[in-house]
């Protein structure tokens, strides 16, 4: 493996790719910190939660459930369901880590979130994305998350909600990451089907099951579509 000459480049690349995520995490982390503090958690407990769990959505849910006196088992089961979608992301990412050491993967997996998944996938598809930069990205995002939740626990109440449209940062980022994924008609069709299925499933299914249901349905649709298109393409070539 090449050593020090590239170290700095790898760091900088990871940090450079991470900043939109950090920008998006910051206000969300602050508001989680505020809620946690209102729920009676000390700032260090909020930090410990972010360190051990690192899953924004389920942390919000857990705080709300703690506030309403839910049992430990219910909160853990809900967390499991809410984060199950990462099974899909981790599977899709695995293609880019052939034969990589278990230690590296164990460290990397800790930082697999919707956001880091989206950015890393876009970079891997572009080509030339170093796995170590991907690791830096995951842990930069994670550190930002932990710090912003702790900061929120201390002073979140003084920061006005919705300042500068910062609460749209992650939506904007997801829109652009989706555009990066539209690499042909089959991908556009898949995204369209996923969007429609997701809205329908959101209305009918509890919690965030809509994400996995819609993603699996749409990916299967896209997969079949590409197979059919491939077959037609071959027939046309022969004609």
């Amino acid at each position: 493996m090449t050593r020090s000459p590239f170290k700095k480049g790898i760091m900088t690349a990871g940090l450079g790719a991470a900043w939109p995520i950090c920008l998006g995490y910051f206000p969300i982390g602050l508001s989680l910190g505020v809620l946690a503090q209102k729920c009676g958690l000390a700032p260090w407990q909020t930090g410990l939660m972010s360190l051990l769990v690192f899953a924004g959505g389920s942390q919000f849910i857990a705080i709300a459930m703690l506030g309403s006196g839910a049992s430990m088992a219910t909160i853990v089961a809900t967390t499991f369901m809410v984060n199950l979608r990462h099974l899909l992301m981790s599977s899709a990412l695995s293609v880019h880590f052939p034969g990589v050491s278990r230690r590296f993967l164990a460290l990397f997996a800790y930082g697999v979130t919707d956001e880091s998944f989206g950015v890393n996938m876009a970079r891997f598809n572009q080509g030339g994305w170093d796995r170590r930069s991907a690791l830096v990205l995951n842990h930069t995002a994670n550190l930002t998350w932990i710090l912003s939740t702790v900061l929120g626990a201390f002073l979140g109440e003084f920061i006005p909600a919705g300042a500068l449209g910062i609460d749209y940062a992650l939506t904007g980022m997801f829109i652009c990451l989706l555009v990066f994924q539209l690499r042909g008609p089959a991908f556009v069709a898949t995204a369209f089907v996923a969007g429609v299925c997701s809205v329908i499933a959101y209305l009918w299914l509890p919690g965030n099951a809509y994400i996995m249901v819609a993603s699996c349905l749409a990916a299967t649709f896209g997969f079949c579509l590409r197979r059919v298109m491939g077959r037609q393409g071959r027939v046309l070539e022969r004609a």
Partner: protein
Amino acid sequence: MNGHDLLILFLAMGAVTYLPRMLPLVLLSRRQLPAWLGEWLEMIPAAILSALIAPALFTQASPRLVVLGKPELWAALPTLLFALKTRSLAGTVLVGMVCYWGLRLFLKL
């Protein structure tokens, strides 16, 4: 819950969060995937990103209903156009924020 219970809760939450993130990476990266699974997984990012965004743009929570014309949706249009034109992540994030902020100011929300 006391401090001790909270620690156990966070550890359990951490375990059920970490395992789905770690197991597929560790198990799948060590073997040759069948071609169909690789092709299927290739469609997952587009599908998952779209599935994450769509309800944020087209629905409201509690009660869950389809709502057209949210500022999130209006702001998404220039954001999407900008992303398609420039393919710049940083630029898109900033354009999205400015559009959303401006719209909310304009609509006095």
